[in-house]
């Protein structure tokens, strides 16, 4: 296990690289969900402003 985390002496480069990439991967999902929620809220406001006529 120790050996695995040591990455043959390259731990200081390998793990930050994985951390940065996984952070980008996760943040993309968070941002995409947030953008969708924002657009839906915005669209709902537009509908309310116009009353209920189609």
């Amino acid at each position: 296990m120790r050996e695995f985390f040591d990455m043959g002496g390259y731990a200081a480069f390998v793990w930050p690289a994985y951390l940065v990439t996984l952070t980008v991967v996760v943040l993309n999902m968070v941002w995409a969900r947030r953008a969708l929620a924002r657009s839906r809220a915005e669209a709902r406001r537009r509908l309310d402003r116009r009353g209920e006529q189609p």
Partner: protein
Amino acid sequence: MKWTWLHRLASPPYVYALAARLTPWFAWPAALLIAAGLWGGLVLAPADYQQGDGFRIIYVHAPSGWLSLMVYTIMGVAAAVGLIWRIKVAHAVAASCAPIGASFTFAALVTGALWGEPMWGTYWEWDPRLTSELILLFLYLGYMGLRAGIDDTQRADRASALLAVVGVVNVPIIHYSVTWWNSLHQAPSVMRLGRPTMPPTMLLPLLLMLLGFTLYFVALLLMRLRSEVLARERSASWIREAVSA
């Protein structure tokens, strides 16, 4: 041959509903592929005979770099389609691509720097590959900045599309930079003519990661596309359905 399916793809309500339905079909396979790729890359693949375990950075660096180029190409093509045929959905696709592409370009640059230090002895060099990839990040950021600076969505679509299309010239420059110029960066080892230069135990995890990242991008694109389509739709009554659902 019927072309109705193509026309439907230009219809916002159809695209909104289709994107919602398709998202999990890309997101879950992507999660599985990335999990398998990480296991294969970090645990199963043997250490490199020259770079030891340091080479394992490839499993996050290459997929990020691949996405940075693929996403820009899709963005450029979508922007061109939007400009030429004035299709709102195409502009929405282009606008959805930018933040995803920018973030993975950032990841490619950072992981590349972390790989460069132990192998080349430097985090950064003004090398053709590194410099052209940095320009790619600026193109994405410029595109997003331009959009953010224009309130009217239609005008923002057209102005930013022009930038996206012009910037496409950078994509082949990045890809071929390692063969055209004497670059520190290694030549392609997977996407090359002939056989890849890696043994299967190293190559397979990389292919899983490349495919996983690609499917993940599609899932993200579909989610962002829904918000961009909603933002462009003013009068349609289908918004009510979309929002209440």
